[in-house]
């Protein structure tokens, strides 16, 4: 359903897992929502109350045409207009590595939302490590097809980096899913070596403790 016909690769493998995870009727914010395909799908399948943010005018126009509410602008500026806890889920799909200020983006995501869903390409994948080691050049793979001089990816992070980041920021990892280059699920223990894409479901520990205390 999220696959493009004639293409053997899933359009966006993370979409399917995000969809499974998002509860029915949830309030969802999608950062870097692109043409709104994910939100449109979530609205139709999960009756979510969704909103997207994107910088790209043509993507924003596409969202509006699809009937997906969208804000044309920077994600940090856009998130600043929402009160704390405005959303159940805030999605950042394959964009963290392109953010100018990923740390602030994460903070804001967990301010406006109860849970953050973050997917990113894993720079710790063995093929990337090998390319760097053997060729001594910036790696190019199917999930990271750009040259160093034209890549939109500003940040180089691995699965382990992200786990470390969560620990440092006192974030609770609720769930995590990893995929290989061939879009098969990868076991957690080998993820940093075998995963080409990672999805993390993260909550604020403090916030969660507050909720438990009631």
């Amino acid at each position, binding site marked *: 359903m999220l696959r493009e016909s004639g293409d053997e690769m899933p359009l966006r493998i993370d979409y399917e897992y995000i969809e499974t995870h998002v509860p029915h009727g949830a309030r969802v914010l999608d950062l870097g929502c692109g043409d709104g395909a994910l939100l449109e799908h979530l609205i139709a399948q999960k009756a979510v*109350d969704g909103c997207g943010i994107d910088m790209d*005018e043509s993507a*924003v*126009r596409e969202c*509006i*045409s699809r009937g997906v509410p*969208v*804000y*044309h602008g920077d994600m940090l500026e856009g998130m600043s207009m929402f009160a704390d806890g405005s959303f159940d889920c805030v999605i950042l799909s394959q964009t963290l590595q392109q953010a100018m200020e990923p740390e602030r983006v994460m903070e804001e995501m967990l301010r406006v939302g109860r849970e953050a869903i973050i997917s990113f390409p894993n720079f710790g994948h063995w093929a990337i490590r090998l390319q760097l080691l053997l060729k001594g050049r910036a790696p190019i793979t199917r999930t990271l097809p750009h040259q160093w001089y034209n890549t939109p990816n500003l940040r180089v992070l691995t699965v382990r980096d992200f786990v470390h980041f969560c620990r440092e920021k006192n974030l609770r990892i609720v769930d995590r899913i990893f995929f290989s280059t061939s879009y098969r699920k990868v076991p957690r223990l080998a993820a940093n070596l075998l995963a080409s894409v990672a999805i993390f479901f993260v909550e604020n520990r403090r916030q969660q403790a507050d909720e438990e205390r009631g």
Partner: protein
Amino acid sequence: MGEEGSVGIVETRYWRFAEPPDRVKLRCGAALGPIDVAYETYGELAPERDNAVLICHALSGDAHVAGMHSPDDPKPGWWDIMIGPGKAIDTERYFVICSNFIGGCKGSTGPSSTNPETGAPYALDFPMVTVSDMVEVQHALVCEHLGLERLLCVIGGSLGGMQVLQWAIDHPGAVYAAMPVASTSRLSAQGIAFDEVGRQAIYSDPDWNGGNYYGGRPPHRGLAVARMVGHITYLSDQSMHEKFGRGLQDEGMLQYDFGPPEFQVESYLRHQGDAFVQRFDANSYLYITKAMDYFDLPSDYGSLIQAFRGVRSRFLVISYTADWLFPTYQSREIVRALHANGVRVSFCELESSYGHDAFLLRNPAMEKLMRDFLANCQVDIRRAGSHAPGKR
């Protein structure tokens, strides 16, 4: 998407209401009546009565938004590019309404209308009207005269966008969707400044005569200068550069005198000024610019968030990159305050090298947005029945 067409030959109609003693109380405290409203409609009202789209016009607009008044009419309505069969606001699908606001000079009651108490034109005895007064009169037309309970969408650019915001605030149940384009929740100091220059140009024309020029020579010089200043604010540095550059008139030679216009841009502005005075009343220009200056939702309601407290419509807010008269940040303020109220809102800043005028010009991106937004609204209004699910 079918072939684009024209709504054809159309006619301005008139409705009179608020006959004394049932005059309309205006915001300034004065009462006005009777009130004539000039309006046009195109397309058919659906049996479900859920396909009415109201267009709110800007400073110099009128009720004649689409089609021609006669077969040899040199110009169609002011937003004919948008409205007609197969166009963005498709008259095969929607029942489109546009009326001239009060204070204007295009058929609705304004300073050039006859004051029933004196039998002479009101001139400056005409009460000061505000954007909310304009909206009240439109509301009376739509609900009392046309018998509609709800509009599918209210659309307007610039001052028209101000009316759209006021509609959504004052009549939340009557506006399913709202589309303010190149607009603001309060006119900026810069906007007031340019309006004041325009007014000063009119005051300083001896023919203005304190507003009493009806039956005599109207203050054409002053009004033309006001229009010239206005026109500069509707363009952009880039659009002027592209349209005129430093291009010279006929001979292509500098004349080194103060005679006829030398630069193309001078000639253009003079032409705009001269054409405008043939169709517009100077006192109306004064009243309407004042209504724009007074428009300030944050101060009227304590804050912009407060202003949108009861809003139930869904919104599509649009701005243009090169619009420096109603810059994008002002649209963003609207969007932020709507979001703070949980209103379902989309915002898009469209790329355009034209300035504020961009909303009046052909723009395929804008036309597609409007077409799709309206179509989505219609699907949803029909699915929801009588509910107004604009609120998150």
